[in-house]
């Protein structure tokens, strides 16, 4: 490559220079090779010539040596020395002692008499020394070795001849090279011109796509180049048209995308280098505000670091990420974007930019949030409504049950009242008829007894009617309450005294226990007596042995006086203890009930006690039976 630094810029000149250099290098080598070859040839030729000469001398000198005719021998040598190129010529005996010696100096042949001993070889030899001299030893034989011919031959003329040839060759070669260069330049001129035109054409083909140049037919290569350039120009033109169309489409698509979507592009580090108008409109930033910045500037804080890490992890792996991101605009308002992030990957498989295409879904999100809130409210309302409905349903069911119960109770009440009315009425009617029909036949006792029955049964009817009327008065608020400051102990004592004979008659002991305290109350004593009478009547009715105890006391908090009447009767089941105070209720309310009663008495008691803000209830008696208790508030004066 370094070579090109020293070469001319033009290709034809480069070819010429390179050819010249090659010639300059190759020609001397060739010449030297030729000269050497020539010299070798000359030397070989001279060797053959000198050997022939030496051999002739040796053959001729045999007889002179045998005859010791040294003069002829010298004459022979002098004649032989006239052969061009011989420098000196000797004949020796077999041991190398010179017999005859002739020398040639400056073209003059003379004999030399400072005979010396030489060192002949064992066989024929031809040596060339550094002085460009060739020494030939040729044996002289006559059946046996009788001497040696030594011939020293100068190769100077041969060398000069060779050098002369080399010089001529060089001159000729130089001229040939020069001519070749000129011819080369002439031959290359046209192709180089065409090549230049092709180069110019290629250089301008991007500007003049679709244009063509004449196809050069001067050479296959040029033809191929120009044809290829024309094809390339044509292809380039078509590609340009395609690219222009694609670009136009892309521009249209980009325009459409920009019109619809928020588009921004970041580099591999997440720094924005493109943001479309819609991005700027939605975020409220100027182009200068966002270019070169990251999305950190519009982060809302709504998402966790893990959220963004997931996004980066996905897009850096070349995956498209899609999702909803909440950002902040310049005014600090939240903007929700439905976003796709598309990574653009380079050949190495790593992303070099990310295109973010988003749609503003803020209004949708707000609507969703509102809808969610409304749904939540609706759900709560629905749940609340369901609760209310359930509650109301439960209440209605309870009311319905109550109504059913009341209906049954009322129906039962009609039966019970009917029974209670019809039974004494039957007695009254029957005994009245008996008296009417048979009064004359019966004795006085019977008459009295039947009249007494009629009277008692009429009283029984009267009590029932009173109970019903009392309840009617209580319900309608027409009950008269003759409240007065009273002593509860006196009221209880009065009832005790009233019932004591009846209990005694039944053989049941009635006991009154009372704490020694003041029992001042404000009550209608007749009503409280009515309560006591009701409970004691029941106790008398159900107790057949043992005792019935009345306990009068003050509650621990001293707010109430308490009356407890414990009987020894059949008792009341646990599950009936509340219901016995309900109107028209009897524990044994079936047709099989054992004991008469309207089922109104205890309900009247409850109404009376509650009228005085007291409480009445029943507990299990000990060891058996029932214990009815009621509290009356401690009120000392009417005004209290």
């Amino acid at each position, binding site marked *: 490559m370094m070579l090109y630094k020293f070469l001319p810029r033009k290709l034809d000149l480069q070819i010429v220079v390179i050819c010249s250099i090659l010639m300059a290098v190759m020609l001397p080598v060739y010449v030297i090779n030729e000269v050497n070859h020539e010299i070798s040839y000359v030397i070989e030729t001279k060797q053959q010539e000198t050997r022939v000469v030496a051999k002739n001398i040796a053959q001729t000198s045999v007889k002179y040596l045998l005859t010791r005719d040294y003069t002829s021998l010298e004459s022979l040598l002098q004649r032989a020395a006239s052969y061009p190129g011989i420098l000196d010529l000797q004949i020796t005996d077999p041991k190398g002692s010179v017999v005859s010696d002739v020398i040639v100096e400056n073209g003059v042949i003379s004999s030399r008499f400072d005979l010396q001993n030489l060192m002949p070889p064992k066989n024929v030899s031809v040596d060339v020394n550094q002085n460009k001299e060739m020494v030939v030893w040729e044996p002289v034989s006559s059946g046996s070795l009788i001497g040696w011919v030594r011939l020293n031959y100068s190769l100077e003329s041969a060398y000069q001849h060779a050098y002369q040839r080399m010089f001529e060759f060089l001159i000729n070669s130089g001229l040939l090279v020069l001519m070749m260069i000129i011819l080369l330049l002439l031959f290359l001129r046209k192709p180089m011109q065409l090549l230049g035109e092709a180069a110019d054409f290629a250089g301008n083909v991007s500007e003049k796509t679709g244009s063509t140049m004449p196809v050069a037919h001067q050479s296959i290569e040029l033809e191929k180049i120009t044809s290829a350039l024309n094809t390339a120009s044509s292809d380039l033109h078509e590609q340009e048209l395609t690219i222009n169309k694609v670009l136009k489409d892309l521009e249209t698509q980009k325009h459409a995308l920009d019109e619809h979507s928020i588009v921004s592009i970041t580099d591999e580090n997440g720094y924005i280098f493109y943001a479309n108008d819609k991005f700027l409109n939605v975020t409220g930033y100027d182009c200068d505000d966002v270019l070169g910045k990251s999305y950190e500037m519009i982060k809302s804080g709504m998402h966790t670091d893990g959220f963004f890490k997931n996004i980066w992890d996905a897009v850096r792996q070349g995956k498209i990420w899609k999702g909803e991101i909440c950002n902040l605009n310049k005014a600090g308002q939240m903007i929700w974007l439905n976003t796709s992030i598309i990574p653009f990957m380079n050949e190495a498989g790593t992303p070099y930019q990310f295109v973010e295409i988003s749609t503003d879904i803020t209004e949708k999100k707000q609507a969703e949030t509102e809808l969610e809130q409304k749904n939540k409210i609706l759900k709560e309302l629905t749940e609340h409504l369901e609760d209310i409905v359930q509650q109301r349903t439960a209440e209605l069911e309870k009311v319905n049950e109550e109504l059913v119960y009341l209906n049954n109770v009322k129906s039962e009440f*009609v*039966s019970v009242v*009917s*029974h209670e*009315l*019809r*039974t004494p*009425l*039957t*007695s*009254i*009617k*029957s*005994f009245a*008829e*008996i008296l009417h*029909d*048979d009064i004359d036949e019966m004795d006085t006792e019977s008459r009295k007894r039947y009249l007494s*029955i009629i009277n008692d*049964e009429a009283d029984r009817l009267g009590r029932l009617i009173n109970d019903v009327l009392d309840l009617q008065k209580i319900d309608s608020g027409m009950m008269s309450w003759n409240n007065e400051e009273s002593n509860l102990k006196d009221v209880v004592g009065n009832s005790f005294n009233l019932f004591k004979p009846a209990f005694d008659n039944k053989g049941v002991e009635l006991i009154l226990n009372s704490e020694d305290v003041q029992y001042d109350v404000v009550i209608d004593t007749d009503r409280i007596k009515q309560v006591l009478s009701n409970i004691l009547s029941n106790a008398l009715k159900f107790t057949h042995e043992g005792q019935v105890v009345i306990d009068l006391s003050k509650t621990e908090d001293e707010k109430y006086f308490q009356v407890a009447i414990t009987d020894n009767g059949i008792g009341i089941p646990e599950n009936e203890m509340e219901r016995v105070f309900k109107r028209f209720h009897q524990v044994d309310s*079936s*047709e*099989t*009930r*054992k004991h008469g009663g309207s089922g109104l008495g205890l309900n009247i008691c409850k109404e009376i006690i509650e009228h005085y803000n007291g409480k009445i209830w029943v507990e299990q008696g000990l060891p058996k039976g029932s214990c009815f208790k009621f509290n009356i508030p401690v009120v000392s004066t009417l005004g209290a």
Partner: protein
Amino acid sequence: MMDAGKKKILICDDEPLIREAISYAVKKAGHEFVMAEDGLQAYDMVKAEAPDLVLLDVGMPGMSGFDVCKKIREMPGGEKYQIMIITAFGQASDQDKAISAGANDYLSKPFSPRDLIVKLETIFSR
């Protein structure tokens, strides 16, 4: 008053005064009577006394008149007894209940002894 012959009548009512009034009228009408205070006793006495007619009050302890009536009808030969139900509950459905239970007749309280005897004689004359 028809002479239907002397009959044995079982009077069953938990009210002693009613029992007394009925027994007075039955005796006066020339019939025999036995008395029971509750349904269970009445059932036993039906088996023991084999009365011609059973007068059953409905509202009684232990077993109602309807139940006693059913039990009598269910016992072997129970269908031969004449049974009259007496009730003081005054419900229109009582008559249906009485017939369903197998009673021959039904009488509602309050009634007079005379009403009862007329009913009894009607039954005996059937």
